[in-house]
């Protein structure tokens, strides 16, 4: 019974999202980028597989980001903003079930979109590969799909963040702002920490306090750069299954923590 209920909400969210008009723009943009990769590639010397993979993975990722920042936020924040949530909560859903149902619907949307885009970019790569087979010897389908998978894990986490932020803020714009800043911080925190650990930086930042703060922030913020395997995939550098398992675990655990916190906060929220 509960799964059926949740499934109904998931499908509702998916349908509402999949018909969002922004989706056409996002899809068209990334398809153009993929088609463009076939042309652009000829301007490079020999690492054509690298450039092809770079462009295609970037197109998939960029589409996912647009989808998360515009469509997902619409599905979550606007639902609360514009009281469409009343129609869901008048049904026997608890607040946590609402959060999970919504999240699953958004994930279903992202998985579908990425599935379609991955298929299209596979076609683009396959075509370029057949045109320039001499320059594709360093290419590996396996590593390409591993990078797509890791990117998907990143979107699991990012959308959990978006769901979390929409439960604590009262407007979709603030949710957007919070999500984008967290995304940027999450992508760069690793580099900042690495920089602070160098000798050079130690001379500039003498204060122990800053280091402690950065240390704490490092543990609170999601480290999103662990999901970025685009470069490795482009150069067909083998990523171990261990690593993939580790980032899978990280993404799932972090998302669950966020969603539980979102449920707890949302339970207390007044929907006037």
């Amino acid at each position, binding site marked *: 019974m509960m799964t059926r209920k949740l499934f109904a909400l998931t499908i509702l969210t998916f349908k509402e999202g999949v018909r969002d008009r922004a989706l056409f723009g996002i899809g068209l943009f990334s398809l153009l980028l993929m088609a463009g990769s076939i042309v652009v590639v000829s301007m490079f010397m020999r690492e054509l597989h690298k450039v092809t993979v770079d462009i295609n993975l970037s197109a998939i990722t960029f589409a996912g980001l647009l989808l998360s920042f515009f469509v997902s936020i619409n599905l979550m924040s606007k639902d609360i903003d514009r009281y*469409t949530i009343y129609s869901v*909560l*008048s049904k*026997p859903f608890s607040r946590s079930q609402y959060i999970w149902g919504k999240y699953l619907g958004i994930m279903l949307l992202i998985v579908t979109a990425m599935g379609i885009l991955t298929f299209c970019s596979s076609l683009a790569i396959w075509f370029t590969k057949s045109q320039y087979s001499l320059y594709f010897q360093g290419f590996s389908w396996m590593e390409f799909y591993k990078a797509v998978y890791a990117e998907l894990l990143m979107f699991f986490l990012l959308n959990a963040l978006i769901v979390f932020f929409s439960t604590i803020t009262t407007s979709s714009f603030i949710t957007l702002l919070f999500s984008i800043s967290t995304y940027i911080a999450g992508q760069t925190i690793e580099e900042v920490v690495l920089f602070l650990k160098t000798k050079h930086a130690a001379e500039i930042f003498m204060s122990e306090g800053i280091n402690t703060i950065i240390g704490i922030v490092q543990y609170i913020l999601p480290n999103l750069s662990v999901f970025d395997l685009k470069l490795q995939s482009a150069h067909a550098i083998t990523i171990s299954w261990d690593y993939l398992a580790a980032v899978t675990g990280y993404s799932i655990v972090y998302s669950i923590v966020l969603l539980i916190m979102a449920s707890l906060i949302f339970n207390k929220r007044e*929907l*006037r």
Partner: protein
Amino acid sequence: MQKILIKNVSKEYISDFKRKRKTAVDNVSLSIEKAEIFGIIGVNGAGKSTIIKMIMGFIKPHSGQIFVSGKTPLDPDSRRNLGYLPENPYFYDNLTARELLMFSCQASGLDKKTSIRRIEILLKKVGLFAEQNQKLRTFSKGMTQRAGICFALVHDPDIIILDEPMSGLDPLGRKIVIDLICDLKQRGKTVLFCSHILNDVERICDRVGIMDGGSLKRVYTKEEIFKSVDAENNLEEIFLKIIGRNQ
């Protein structure tokens, strides 16, 4: 057994910036029995919607208790057998009326066959059957209102809560809704609704509660209304007298 029981419920809103308190509902007690149609009337800001939102569990009372079918609104099961129409309903833009109703059925645990049958009957009743596969974005206010009524009724709940069911409806739509409510009563359903349109309330309610300034001033039974309603003393008069703004 009471279907809806409200015991000494109060609700204060605190404005976000000034931290100023405003009492929206003040010590209201009310019980609604099975197969009863209860109407709440009151001016804007009287606290009608606040009470309904507390019954639905959207907001929580500061003090007092609420029970729906013997369960508190915090328990999702309290809404298992309940249908709700929000004030100025607004639904998902990109869904069709049919999909919205299907969701309502599935979330309440109806099987597919029954759902399809009930959706068809209801859509025909409110005159939306031809538009069932149109996106809700294209609906006019009255159409949305009618779709919302279907959303509240499609899973055949025992308790129906309607917040301003007549708003945005043309006379024909209003007649359809009144017929629907009367039909519900005959089938032993409990209905709670609030409205500004006193004429409708008078016609269909078993009991009427008059709210003002957050408190429930008085509850009239149908007989009492009939008794006091005559040529110069209709429900409107009573209402204005009660809230003390009869000049």
